[in-house]
């Protein structure tokens, strides 16, 4: 054509032609940033082994996802950092003394069986990190050996025999006693427990960061922690209701679970009401397991059970579409 003065390679696509700067990758990066204070805290409380376990776990998760995609000739999406988040979270719910081979097996289970076999990111039914943890309880002793905090008690990088063990606050509480540690120690994280779960303060810093970055909303964590607090307050096992409530809220993996695990997009409901019900359900189950279960930690199993209810919870609280015939509905 004569009037085609210019020839450019123009791209044709459906609108919109611009996109917000937020992507899956930036979201996962923000989650990793939000987990960093707790990671630094774990090094302070448990020594370098905590960091080493985390790094091994991240490397294993990324490797397993990459290897799976290569083997199955699938499109490899490891650059979205979601495997890194799974790696960090799985390490965070293991004791610092966990042998490296155990956590690598846990990573294998989490990534290959829970995530990739279901179709990769966005398709898994339950949280991979929590499912990996549940799998690792095949070695219950390894998973429930708790070291005392402090540099002098820490396990060395390559051997765990020297570590000094101690009971966690939740173990005390499971027997109906107030924990030996003070509430302040539990808030700051100066207690025995899993790598990333001990310090409520540092996890809350991450929570605030995620809220400010609008990665998550406060609905699920508040519903979850609120339910646990209310139930603990109503049914205390000690003399002081408030202290018991604080111990239940700051003890164990509640903060980590409520802020970072229950809010996992893939395995939580998309509707607002669904999210609140989901949070309450997690809270009720956590208290039930902590009070009546054989094992003293309830968070991971509570979330795993509620994960399976998400398909149903997605059905409640759906928004009424714009311009829906309201009055006619009432008449009928």
């Amino acid at each position, binding site marked *: *054509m004569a*009037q*085609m*003065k*210019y020839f*450019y*390679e*123009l*791209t*044709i*696509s*459906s*609108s*919109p*032609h*611009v*996109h*917000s700067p*937020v*992507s*899956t990758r*930036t*979201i996962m990066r923000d989650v990793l940033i939000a987990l960093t204070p707790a990671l630094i805290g774990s090094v302070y409380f448990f020594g370098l082994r905590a960091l080493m376990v985390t790094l091994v776990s991240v490397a294993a998760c990324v490797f397993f996802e990459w290897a799976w995609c290569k083997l199955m000739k699938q*499109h490899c*999406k490891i650059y979205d950092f*979601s495997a890194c988040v799974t790696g960090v979270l799985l390490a965070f719910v293991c004791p610092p003394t966990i042998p490296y081979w155990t956590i690598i097996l846990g990573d294998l289970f989490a990534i290959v069986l829970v995530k990739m076999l279901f179709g*990769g*990111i*966005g*398709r898994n039914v339950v949280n991979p990190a929590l499912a990996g943890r549940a799998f690792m309880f095949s070695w219950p002793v390894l998973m429930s050996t708790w070291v005392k905090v402090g540099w002098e008690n820490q396990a060395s990088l390559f051997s765990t025999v020297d570590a000094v063990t101690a009971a966690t606050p939740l173990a005390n509480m499971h027997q109906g006693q107030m924990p030996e540690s003070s509430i302040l120690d539990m808030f700051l994280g100066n207690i025995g427990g899993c790598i990333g779960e001990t310090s409520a303060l540092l996890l809350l810093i991450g929570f605030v960061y995620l809220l400010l970055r609008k990665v998550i909303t406060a609905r699920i964590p508040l519903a979850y922690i609120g339910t646990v607090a209310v139930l603990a307050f109503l049914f205390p096992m000690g003399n002081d209701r408030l202290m018991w409530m604080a111990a239940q809220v700051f003890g164990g993996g509640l903060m980590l679970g409520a802020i970072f695990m229950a809010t996992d*997009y*893939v395995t*939580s409901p*998309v*509707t607002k009401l669904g999210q609140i019900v989901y949070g309450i359900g997690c809270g009720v189950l956590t208290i039930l397991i902590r009070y009546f279960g054989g094992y003293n930690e309830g968070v991971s199993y509570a979330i795993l059970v509620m994960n399976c209810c998400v398909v149903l919870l*997605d059905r409640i609280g*759906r*928004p*009424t*579409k*714009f*311009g*829906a*015939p309201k009055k006619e509905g009432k008449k009928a």
Partner: protein
Amino acid sequence: MEKTCEVIKMTFSFFGGIHPDENKFLSCDKPIQEFPEPDVLVVPMSQHIGAPCKPLVKKGDPVTVGQKIGDNTGLCVPVHSPVSGKVKSVEMKAHSSGTTMMSVVIENDHLGTLCEEIQPRTQEQVDALTPEELMEIIHQAGVVGMGGATFPTHVKLSSGIGKVDTIIVNAGECEPYITADDRLCREMPELVISGVKVIMKIFGLNTAHIAIEDNKPQAAKALQAQLCAADGITIDVLPAMYPQGAEKQLIQAITGRQVPSGGLPAAVGCAVFNAATCKAIHDAVYEGMPLIKRIVTVSGNIVMAPKNLIVPIGTSYNDLMEAVGTSANPYKVLSGGPMMGISQYDLSVPITKGTNAVTILGHRSRYHVDHPQCIRCGKCIDVCPMKLMPVLMYKSLMTNDVEQIKATNMMDCIECGCCAYTCPAYLPLVLGFRSGKQRIRAHAAAAASKKV
């Protein structure tokens, strides 16, 4: 007389919405310029929703400025020649919608000979006109909704008489980059308001709302300076948010009413007119001038000199790109803004009545992710102004069951692009919903033909 009018600052506007980078600073301070008439113009015979026009001229015919060159019966508005000269050919030409269309190609003689039918009217003459006569003038002048939908204005007017109690003038202009209506309101506020008064007369109403976003304070001020309390026209300043200028959202923001699903604004007593349409109505009624030119913003992230231009209908995108210059090879050239614009592959396509902007994007402004995968974040639900659930709508597309797709209310989607803009996984949501709507329509058509 003291010139004051009511300025209402609205706080609540509508559900959802997003804040994309506006990038209006590129062109919002550039005064409107007359674009030099090109030598050859391609005037498509369909620049509106409805039946396409039949060409009234043939190859070799002389034409004058404003001469009717296409018309048809039914839901149709005529098309006029923007320049004087000779008809070079009448043939199928590429159109900015991505298809080809019967078009009249006119060779410009640059004499600007006016068609003798074009006669300005005085205020007394206009006052003497009945609403029916006014609507016929607007029809014959080829006025359509100039915000992009190109719905015939006379049909909107005639179908709304008796039903409409609220006139809303849309000067919101929420799309990024576009400043055509902003400049129009700043530089020619009296013409916009004159058009609004004609609409008020046709509907027999003595109030109207001019809706404008709070990021255009100068335009609001310019309009305010032209109004007095007796005019009955209020200026409603709305928070800047996309898609504030979408018809249904605008009605909700101004009146709180929700246009029923599948219904027209007249169902809730509202009629929405674009600011540029109001100016076109003024031109038609007072100047006798049909819609042959419009203001087009030519902007984009690689445009060297963004401009707001008065462009004759039928000017090619090539000519406009030459006028502004680009600093790099364009990646996408859009008819309209970046949120809802149509990407072009042939730059010989002409400007039409609904083209409010040509946006030229350089680098890859929206990445294409291979194998995108929903992570169920639910952000699309929060931003959807129609309160739909794009996450479930997209999932329903994987099925073969059209009824299941329909049950997600996909037909209510206004394709504003908020969900696809927000989606962290870069899912092609709007593309998917367009195809889903086609499947629903095809299914309905197939079901209808079976019954017969």
